[in-house]
């Protein structure tokens, strides 16, 4: 009965590989040294407000937002600031990190809980707590919660369509109450009448928990969606839940929707009800070379090397071929373990030779899979041809800018051609030329 669930057109079915779906969320050991990146979000990086030698408590602001589209950063643990220096982020970029030596005293500096907050109070609290979209993009949530016109729908994205990742699944299963509470708060903040939570059909447990938490209410309810990649893409999620099509270059707000991730809703509920800033998140650690995989609440700033140490199990580091921050479809391959967990790190995968087989491209056989399965109805085959020919204006005619880089084309290609990679090159080149 798979086809009975709501979904979007086209797409692909990579193996789900949700090996950690039944591993309960656990608190991760706190590291002795944390490096908190000041750019964990889209927009201006945060500005450091502490200095080397300062003593901080968990939840105390250490970076003030550097503009309207920016977000505050807080100390994840109590301790002492030992350095303010540049470092590498999980996306491969460079930004200032604040290094904190954990004193394991557990001092906290949370905000007072809010009782029956108004929309403005919710927005202000979200801003104070530095909450950003935790699905991957990291768009500052207080900006998203201030739409120009009140939308009809508030949509929560619990699709988690990327293979391997199970942190949202566990969060929905174990913390459904908080997520539903967060959904109500966020719907209230944007002025939407209805909040829908989209969950893929392979997360029946999460769906049941959310349904129980909603208790048959009219204003919030979960909706089962077909398991298909990229079900969690914003435009595809809007279409599956409401049947509305976000126009090219547009935002969900254009069709009366605001979309946010379930983990964000959880963070909002914690911020409002407990005054806790966004200083930790659920992270899936998996992949074939992880000896002790699982889902963990990790403080932001936990170094990847520390994560590896605690989850290595019986495995050897020598067998790791690839380290991915995020999922295998859209995640970022790491060149080392220097980066640290940020607010948008949903998973850390350690792949061996078997899982990340290197493929060399062969000649395109014109099978048309990339064209038939592109969720955005583009023609990756033609775009790649234009890129190979160096004809970048042609790629623009082929709507290359509407590509969301989900990677379906490269995934399904039998000739293993680097299609989405060519598209990225085209977008980057067009951007540079426009300057």
């Amino acid at each position, binding site marked *: 009965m798979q086809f009975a669930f709501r979904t979007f057109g086209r797409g692909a079915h*990579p193996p789900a590989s949700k090996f950690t779906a039944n591993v309960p969320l656990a608190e991760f050991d706190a590291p002795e040294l944390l490096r908190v990146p000041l750019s964990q979000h889209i927009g201006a990086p945060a500005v450091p407000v502490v200095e080397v030698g300062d003593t901080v408590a968990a939840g105390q602001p250490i970076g003030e937002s550097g503009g309207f589209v920016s977000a505050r950063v807080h100390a994840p643990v109590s301790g002492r600031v030992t350095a303010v220096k540049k470092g590498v982020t999980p996306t491969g970029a460079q930004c200032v990190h604040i290094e904190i030596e954990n004193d394991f005293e557990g001092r906290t500096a949370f905000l007072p809980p809010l009782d029956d907050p108004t929309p403005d109070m919710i927005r202000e609290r979200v801003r104070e707590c530095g909450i950003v979209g935790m699905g991957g993009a990291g768009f500052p949530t207080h900006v998203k919660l201030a739409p120009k016109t009140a939308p009809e729908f508030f949509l929560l994205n619990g699709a988690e369509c990327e293979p391997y990742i199970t942190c949202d699944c566990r969060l929905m299963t174990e913390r459904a109450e908080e997520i539903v509470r967060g959904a109500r708060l966020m719907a209230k903040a944007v002025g939407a009448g209805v909040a829908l939570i989209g969950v893929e059909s392979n997360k029946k447990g999460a769906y049941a928990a959310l349904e129980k938490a909603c208790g048959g209410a009219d204003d919030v309810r979960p909706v089962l969606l077909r398991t298909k990649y990229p079900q969690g893409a914003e435009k595809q999620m809007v279409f599956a839940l409401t049947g509305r*099509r976000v126009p090219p270059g547009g935002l969900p707000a254009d069709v009366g929707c605001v979309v946010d991730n379930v983990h964000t809703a959880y963070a909002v509920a914690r911020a409002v009800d407990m005054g806790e800033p966004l200083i930790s998140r659920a992270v899936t650690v998996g992949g074939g070379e992880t000896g002790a995989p699982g889902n963990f609440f990790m403080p932001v700033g936990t170094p990847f090397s520390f994560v590896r140490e605690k989850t290595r199990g019986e495995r050897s580091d020598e067998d790791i*071929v690839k380290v991915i921050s995020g999922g295998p479809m859209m*995640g970022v391959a*790491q060149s080392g373990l220097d980066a640290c967990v940020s607010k948008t790190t949903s998973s850390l995968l350690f792949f061996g030779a078997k899982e990340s087989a290197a493929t060399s491209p062969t000649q395109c056989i014109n099978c048309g899979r990339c064209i038939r399965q592109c969720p*955005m109805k583009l023609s990756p085959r033609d775009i790649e041809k234009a890129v190979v020919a160096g004809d970048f204006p042609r790629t623009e005619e082929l709507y290359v800018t509407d590509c969301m880089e989900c990677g379906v084309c490269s995934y399904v290609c039998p000739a293993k051609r680097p299609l989405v990679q060519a598209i*990225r090159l085209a977008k980057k080149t067009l951007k540079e030329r426009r300057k």
Partner: protein
Amino acid sequence: MKNLRVSSSPHITSPATTQRIMLDVIIALCPAVLAMVLLYGFYPLFLTVLSVSSAVFCEWVFNIITKRTQTTRDLSAVVTGIILALNLPPVVPFYVPIVGAAFAIIVVKMLFGGIGRNFANPAITARIFLMLAWTGVMTQFVLPVDLSDGANLFAYFRQGVEISLPDAITTATPLQGVKEAISSGTDPSAGLSALDMFLGRIGGSAGEVSTLAVLIGGVYLAVRRVIDVKIPVLYIGSTALFTAIFFADSGYVGEYVWTYLLGGGLMFGAFFMATDYATSPKTPVAVVIYGLGLGFLTVVIRKYGTMNEGVSFAILLMNIVTPLLEKIKRKPFGTPHKDVKELAAAVRAKFAKKQTAVEEGGERVE
């Protein structure tokens, strides 16, 4: 862990490979090959082996001469060889498939850049080439052999080297009978049995006669998602539709439809040749035009042409149109549809403008 592999996402790929797809096509061709052996004995199988060997050998040599990477391992030459052999009459001289496969691979496929770059289906183009080169042997068909006598399995090896076959063993194909019925205005299905045509107990090309065997392979391809199933469905459907339209006043509409569907190479062409990757369009609108065009051309050629190779010529012609169909632009997801009302309003506005222009012009003349 010193040398981590860093690459742009996605970090996983589907198990589909070119080789696996071609292997699927070969598997799908097996029922037709089996039916061919059961109907005509081992001689056409021998021709198939020659055709495949010639195809693979030519690709191998071509790659060596032009200093390209060897591509014979992708199995696409094997597919071309099998499809060409199944397209030939069961009894032709042994050199016919050898020359045909060489033409298909070298001229139609490799000279245009190899796999995925050919402008027309290699097997069909080669078949038409052979048709013109050896019209005599390419148009004489034999009856299926009686397999109750095991020796008959080797029945046609003796005649294989003859250019013209004795009348005693040749037969007319159903479509030749239908063609005569068109001019005489009689029942086209006279003397034909739908069951025989479905199972393949008729004269025709070696691998195309058994509709049943072709359908089994076609369903396999559709289930494995190797082919875009819209193409055969549209092709077969539109052939039935256009047959009904073109023969509407003949008095034998039903008979024409089923003889046209079961006779000739329609089923084989629809599943195995019209769906050829390099020469079929990909976007839904283009596929619909392609499918309808195939059906239309097939019926027109079969009804008005002097030859019965409607399917081959229709596919070849639509192959040539495919690059044009590919130019039909597809708008990205979410592009607002023009409302019917909006369109009507736009048309009306245009019309009204013309009207006023005419009126104004009229006034000026007065």
